[in-house]
């Protein structure tokens, strides 16, 4: 029996899963990310350093801020610019607000339909998804309205500092070109305060979904810091205790081409598959979460080192709470001042690692003395997850090999979605 | 009074005149008067407004607009049905100097939808035929499917002399709607350019006034032709088309080198607009 899911829906970008079952056994499984490659690393060469954030933000329509911050940090390292604490905090606000927004999109629009038949809203022509349902008792409109409230409040945060929530413009190498007035900041704080309840409801809603029982064998990786729940800066840590400095990334991680996929896959040299993203972050640095997020996690009985990738969704919901509360605190402490410094160009190279919504994101640049990019290297969360995802898919198929074809392929799709891959990013 | 605030008009009836061209018979509450050559801003909420000439004289709070669907506003209006409402404001502009030409010979020359603003002049002349001298209408359309008011021509022909032409005749489909059948696909008139028809008519230049409406480039050639025939510049009147947003000389779109087509026109005597920059006359 050959099964092919040609175009996995409700993920960002284009990818397919193909597998072949012979005599009740899985013979072969391939995750093919067939979205056409876009060659960012190619055409970034020859561009000027200050254009890079604007260009790389177009790698992804969900996590533009992550690509911007990562590239900005890498370039600032290359030219030896050290941003002030205020600028760092502001970048953290940007990243957190975007992580929350991305998780919201993922949970409500991409994941929920699997459990919930949200699809029905969109068309008469399409049959609803097969039922894996629990919950969703007619409260659909309620949920969409909640999503809109949440989304609007966090997008407003990204927008007042960045100019717009998608592909912001005020965040540049050297800081922020403009900062909003006290009044405007007061308004977004109010907005965030008003969605606290909605955030907790989201955690409850997500915790009630009926997740397939499954465990993967993979190493969880994220960045950590002793000061905070690291998002934009930190050292690499894994669930098996490894700690690596950001600058040593390349000696530990290796990117390789996959013959049947346009996306590359990244592994930890000599160690095998890794998983990055919300679940990994929670597994590794649960202790650094905002107390309210911890409370929310405890309320639903979330356990550290959950090995079920489907629970990534719960981890995301907990991070939503963390992001909102932490943003409020950072915004409360925000002081008006100088947020932009002119950066002097010089020859150099620099790299940076951040936590994008979907996990660890790496950018590395070499600049010549005119500030022109000579080499660019970008490793996305989806590349980090690629191998783990493929392995998990194999394991999932083997464990459910007796299920009917439809159900099996849907299960696979759901697993893919739980990893929250971004195919557009992966073929940057 | 806020000139930009429109009135509601009800579509009492719609006649299909030609391809993409419909005549809307409108009625409004309250008194309303307009002279031939003036126009309304016609529109609908959410779509906008377009300047449209009166294609009939106003009678019992009723008047007509004949509109060709070419863009956003006119395309939308084309989809409206009998009894729907639309918005109008007006009348605006300077019309044809009909009273000024009483007792004189009149040449009415139109091309395409340009016949719409000429029709109320015809109606006025026919109503008081004895007040005017010789009256001829020269009308050219792209083809017989594009010719307007064909079913009224027999009636008009009783009072004024008609010279009709099309650039080309389309045989298919047969044009039964035109009334009289016959050869040339049902077309019993001329084939060729309007300007060619000029050669066929005989006029007394000193006593003749011409009212012309059509594409500007056509009007250019007609005016040149009429000048050659000896009519004075000041006896030629043309109606110009420009983009308009307000109709009251505020929005500036229709400016034609110091003139506002909406307020100073749309009807101009030829010597007022001849040779102005950005114009074709």
């Amino acid at each position: 029996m050959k099964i092919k899911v040609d175009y996995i829906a409700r993920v960002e970008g284009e990818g397919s899963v193909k597998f072949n079952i012979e005599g009740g056994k899985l013979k072969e499984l391939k995750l093919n990310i067939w979205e056409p490659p876009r060659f960012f690393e190619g055409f970034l060469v020859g561009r000027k350093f200050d254009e890079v954030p604007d260009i790389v933000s177009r790698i992804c329509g969900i996590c533009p801020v992550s690509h911007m911050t990562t590239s900005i940090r890498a370039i600032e390292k290359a030219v030896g610019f050290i941003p002030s604490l205020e600028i760092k905090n502001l970048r953290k606000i940007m990243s957190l607000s975007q992580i929350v927004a991305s998780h919201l999109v993922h949970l409500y629009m991409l994941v929920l339909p699997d459990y919930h038949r949200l699809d029905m809203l969109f068309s008469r022509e399409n049959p609803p998804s097969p039922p894996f349902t629990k919950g969703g008792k007619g409260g659909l409109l309620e949920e969409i309205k909640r999503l809109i409230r949440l989304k609007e409040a966090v997008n407003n945060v990204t927008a007042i500092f960045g100019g717009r929530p998608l592909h912001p413009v005020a965040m540049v190498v050297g800081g922020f070109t403009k900062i909003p007035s006290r009044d405007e900041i007061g308004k977004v704080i109010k907005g965030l305060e008003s969605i606290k309840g909605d955030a907790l409801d989201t955690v409850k809603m997500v915790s009630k979904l009926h997740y397939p029982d499954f465990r993967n064998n993979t190493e969880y990786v994220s960045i950590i810091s002793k000061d905070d729940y690291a998002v934009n800066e930190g050292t690499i840590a894994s669930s098996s205790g490894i700690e690596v400095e950001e600058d040593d990334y390349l000696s530990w991680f290796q990117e390789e081409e996959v013959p049947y996929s346009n996306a590359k896959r990244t592994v930890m040299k000599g160690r095998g598959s890794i998983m990055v993203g919300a679940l990994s972050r929670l597994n590794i640095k649960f202790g650094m979460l905002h107390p309210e997020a911890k409370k929310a996690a405890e309320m639903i009985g979330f356990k550290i080192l959950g090995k079920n990738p489907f629970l990534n969704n719960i981890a995301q919901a907990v991070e939503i709470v963390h992001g909102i509360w932490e943003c409020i605190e950072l915004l409360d402490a925000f002081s008006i001042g100088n947020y932009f410094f002119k950066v002097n160009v010089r020859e150099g190279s620099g790299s940076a690692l951040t936590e994008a919504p979907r996990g660890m994101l790496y950018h590395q640049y070499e600049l010549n003395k005119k500030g022109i990019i000579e080499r660019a290297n970008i490793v996305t969360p989806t590349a980090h997850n690629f191998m783990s995802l493929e392995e998990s898919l194999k394991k999932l198929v083997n464990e459910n090999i007796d299920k009917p074809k439809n159900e099996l392929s849907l299960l696979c799709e759901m697993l893919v979605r739980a990893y929250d891959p971004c195919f557009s990013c992966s073929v940057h | 009074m806020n000139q930009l605030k429109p009135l509601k008009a009800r579509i009492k009836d719609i006649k299909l005149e030609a391809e993409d061209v419909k005549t809307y018979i409108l009625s409004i509450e309250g008194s309303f008067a307009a002279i031939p050559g003036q126009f309304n801003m016609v529109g609908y909420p959410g779509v906008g407004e377009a300047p449209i000439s009166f294609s009939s004289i106003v009678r019992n709070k009723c008047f007509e607009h004949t509109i060709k669907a070419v863009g956003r506003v006119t395309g939308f209006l084309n989809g409206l049905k009998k009894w729907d409402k639309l918005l109008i404001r007006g009348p605006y502009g300077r019309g044809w100097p009909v009273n000024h030409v009483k007792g004189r010979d009149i040449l009415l020359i139109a091309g395409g939808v340009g016949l719409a603003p000429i029709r109320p002049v015809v109606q006025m002349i026919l109503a008081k035929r004895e007040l005017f001298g010789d009256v001829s209408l020269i009308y050219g359309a792209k083809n017989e499917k594009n010719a307007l008011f064909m079913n009224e021509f027999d009636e008009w022909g009783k009072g004024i002399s008609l010279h009709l032409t099309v650039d080309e005749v389309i045989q298919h489909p047969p044009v039964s709607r035109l009334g009289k059948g016959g050869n040339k696909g049902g077309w019993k008139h001329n084939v060729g350019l309007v300007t060619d028809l000029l050669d066929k008519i005989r006029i007394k230049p000193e006593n003749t006034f011409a009212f012309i409406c059509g594409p500007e480039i056509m009007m250019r050639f007609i005016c040149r032709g009429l000048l050659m025939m000896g009519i004075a510049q000041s006896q030629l009147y043309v109606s110009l088309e420009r983009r308009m947003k307000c109709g009251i000389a505020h929005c500036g779109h229709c400016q034609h080198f110091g003139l506002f087509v909406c307020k100073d026109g749309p009807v101009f005597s030829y010597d007022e607009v001849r040779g102005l920059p950005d114009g074709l006359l």
Partner: protein
Amino acid sequence: MCGLCGELAKAPFRRSKKLVPKETFFLWLDSLRKKYKLIGPVKVGSQTVFKKLNSSKELFMEYESTMFSPGKLFIYKPKEDLLRFSINDEIAIDEIPPISEKQVIIGVHPCDTNAILYLDKIFLGAYKDPYYDVRRKNTIIISLNCTKVSLNCFCSSVGAGPFLKAEAGYDMLLTDFEDKYLIEIKSRRAEELFNIKGKRVGASELRLKSEKEKSLLSSFKKTINVEGLDELFMKNIEHPVWQYTAEERCLSCSNCVMVCPTCFCYDIVDETSMDLKTVRRFRHLDACQDIRFAEVYGGNFRQRRAARLRQFVSHKLNQTSQYGVLGTVGCGRCITWCPTGIDLTEIAKEIQKS
């Protein structure tokens, strides 16, 4: 009946002149705040902007020029809601009344005062624009004669400055006399409102005033001779200056038109709500430099960039038949704010050369 304020012309008011210490004048200004919104030039970074004032202390009366003229910001508006439609079974039409706050604009330079008088001709002519009309009536204009000539000013060549000559259509005129203002009352309501005594102005002060004007007049760097320009333009419709300026320099960005204090053109736009039930109709400034401006079905009367540039420049310098006056007030804004510095006075000179 006074065309502007609608008052019946009673006995003529006294066009008095007085010398008032600046301090006293500003105190008086602040006292108006209870009843009026005060608007005046305020320094913002390296620029000056006409803004609402909280106190006369914010005023920067020594300013040279602003990007937007006060008339186009506070009497005519760059953007303004006109109507709201609701569409259910019936179409309902609601007028959006203009906000008719009483306001005082302080420090309006002669060019900008003249520009307001020009806008009056358009919006208070045969058809009155009710939105403009209400604001115009509710605005007290306190003009200010210039003390400096900036790089692109040429008001002296077109009779619009640097000292204001118009006698009516505004309320007060200030001339800077170091620590005092020479204040001239130009309307009845100003006479009623300005109850400050002040020192009487005699012949010596008037002489001083005209000396100040003379010394300014000699410092203009930009000039233009508008004599016979109308005819000359008409004779040179296809002068090459249009073509090469348009192609080599004009960006069709419309900045010139937007900052011009006498450019009045607007576009009307409808915006439908997503539930399709309400429509907002508003207008905003439009520009003849824009490619769509003269587009109609089947053609565009100013398809060529050169034709659009010519329309703008000639509407400012020529086409005087339209309102009987020049379209330019010599403020030089279109030169200053044109990214490539296209200069209408230079264009005119090119044409005059031939």
